């Protein structure tokens, strides 16, 4: 299908300064002998929101987690190919996954605050990474950026588990940006939330995109259309391995997709 490893570059919109935040080259991810994601070649634009869409099980999460070596925590998983971050392959033998993950943060589908106070949750990552500045300021700044500050400023010392689901998810985003990453990966960050909380997260993403590169996995077509700048559509091939079908500016993918399968999926005529 895409046997050549030529990265698909959305050509229609010129990048501000020709800059890509991260780039996959011939990337495959395996679980044991099973290839979940196959030969992905893809360049992600800096400070834009890129959405991964596709049917369930096609490997969106797997691909996303390959961008900060999160798959390594699954004993059977391993990757082949390269992921270039500022020209450096993050899978090179001398690269430290800890360094990678600090620069490429992650927000998970289900909010997963630590069983600590709200303050400690935000400060934790910065602390372990040796933050030099004023911690209270950093916590406030991060919580403000996620529009959570006003809601929690009086209960910073209370358990994060007492927050609502939407608040917990925004706390997890605040936690992620407190370590000042370069890229934030979000795996269906709003799927467990109600429509209002979802809109809040989307607004938040827009805000954050001014400073961060964001990659988001979503099942929600409207969300992808509304909130992202670029969209990548994945599909399982005959071996059940996820492959990249089409990648381009979101408007183009949703209005005039070049691939019939993309159109089928977007218009709901597809699994």
């Amino acid at each position, binding site marked *: 299908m895409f046997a050549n490893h030529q990265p698909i570059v959305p050509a229609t919109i010129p990048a501000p300064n020709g800059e890509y935040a991260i780039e996959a080259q011939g990337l495959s991810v395996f679980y044991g002998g099973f290839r979940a994601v196959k030969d992905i070649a893809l360049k992600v634009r800096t400070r834009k929101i890129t959405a991964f869409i596709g049917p369930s099980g096609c490997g969106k999460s797997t691909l996303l987690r390959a961008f900060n070596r999160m798959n390594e925590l699954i004993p059977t998983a391993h990757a082949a190919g390269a992921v270039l971050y*500022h020209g450096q392959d993050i899978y090179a033998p001398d690269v430290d996954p800890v360094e990678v993950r600090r*620069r490429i943060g992650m927000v998970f589908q289900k909010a997963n605050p630590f069983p600590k106070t709200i303050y400690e949750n935000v400060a934790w990552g*910065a602390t372990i990474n040796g*933050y030099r*500045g004023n911690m209270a300021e950093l916590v406030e*700044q991060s919580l403000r950026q996620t529009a959570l500050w006003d809601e929690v400023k009086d209960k910073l010392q209370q358990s994060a588990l007492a927050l609502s689901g939407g608040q917990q998810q925004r706390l997890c985003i605040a936690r992620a940006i407190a*370590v*000042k990453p*370069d890229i934030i990966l979000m795996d269906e960050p709003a799927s467990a939330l109600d429509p209002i909380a979802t809109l809040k997260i989307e607004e938040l993403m827009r805000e954050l995109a001014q400073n961060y590169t964001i990659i988001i996995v979503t099942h929600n077509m409207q969300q992808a259309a509304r909130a992202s700048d670029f969209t990548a559509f994945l599909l399982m091939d005959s071996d059940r391995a996820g492959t990249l079908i089409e990648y381009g500016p979101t408007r183009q993918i949703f209005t005039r997709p070049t691939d019939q399968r993309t159109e089928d999926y977007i218009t709901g005529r597809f699994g």
Partner: protein
Amino acid sequence: MSAETNGPLGGAEQTFDAGLPQRKRVAVAWHTLFLASTIIGVIALTALLYTVINQSFGLVAVQNRIEPASLAVDGVPLAQLTQEQYVAILQANLSPGVFRRYDSEQPFTERSRENLYALVLERVVQPRYVKTWPLIAAFFDRAAIETEVARDFPGAKLVFRSWVTPDFLRSPQASAPELAGVRTAILGSLWTILITILTALPIGVGAAIYLEEYARASWATRLIRTNITNLAGVPSIIYGMLGLAIFVRGAEALTSGAAFGLADPTTANGRTILSAGLTLALLILPLLIINAQEAIRAVPRSLRQASYGLGATQWQTIWRHVLPSALPGILTGTILAISRAIGETAPLVVIGASTFIVVDPNGPFAKFTTLPIQIYQWTSRPQPQFRNLAAAAILVLLALLLTMNTSAVLLRNRYSRRA
């Protein structure tokens, strides 16, 4: 936030001092610590097995009261003599009273050659182990040992001996370490465990079924559950005291067999196999119930619903569907509980295991000793030869437990593959 905080490879570098090399060094140190602890655990097991094996084999200095060579007749060695010649040797070396006693036990004319030969060895040659050396010393200090034997025990012969032998398994307890075996102890263990299984298994499974399938959330049910958890944590010696007061003393008429006219005339008290088995049954009951509950809980709800959907009663559902599905799990749990019971010592000492039995136990009302009790008694003896016997008995016990646990693991694996 300003744009430069996250430029290429981050202006964030200025605000963070991730100090990774330092963190990595700390991490490596801790990792080593964790690994080392694990290795210490493995070493402990190795040291334990080493000690037991080291003592189960080794050199012994054997001293005979009468050298077999001096008993040879016309150049024919002792081992190849005829029955008549053995009888003659016995008559010549034993006092007339002892000789007559053996004859009346079983006439010499009816005894086999092997039997007579064994008797000559035991009563006439009388080999004694004057000193023993463990396996490792036997390998590495052989020369020193030989000179020591030549100096201290001039008449003694140095031989390599395995303390675990078929004879060790076949012979009853004896006061001489050369002849002692674990036959009575093994039989005692088996009898005791039989009683334990017969009582604990139905009651344990019954209680588990009741708690999982019938009992409804009420304070009484909660009480039973909490109570079972607590019983599982009661020290085994307390069960011994319970058994002593209830079975040995309180129900003496029943446990001694007097009520059935079956009491063993030599004891006629409650310190019997029956009391021991019942005490161990109480001891493993909580464990058994908890394991069985887990196995029953693992049976999928859909199976029960399917059965009820066809109009089966509750008991039919349990008997035909739930129990068969839970059976491997229940059996695994039972084997584990039983192996716990086999190894128990303290409660049996408390209810009064016999210190010295040479006759095979012949039923629930017999006096008892068990393998762990035997090990305990041999270990407590000061003479080193008994340490060797204890080690050999430990090997037998461990082999028994290993067999049981392996079968439990195999069962569990088969079960989990099917589930």
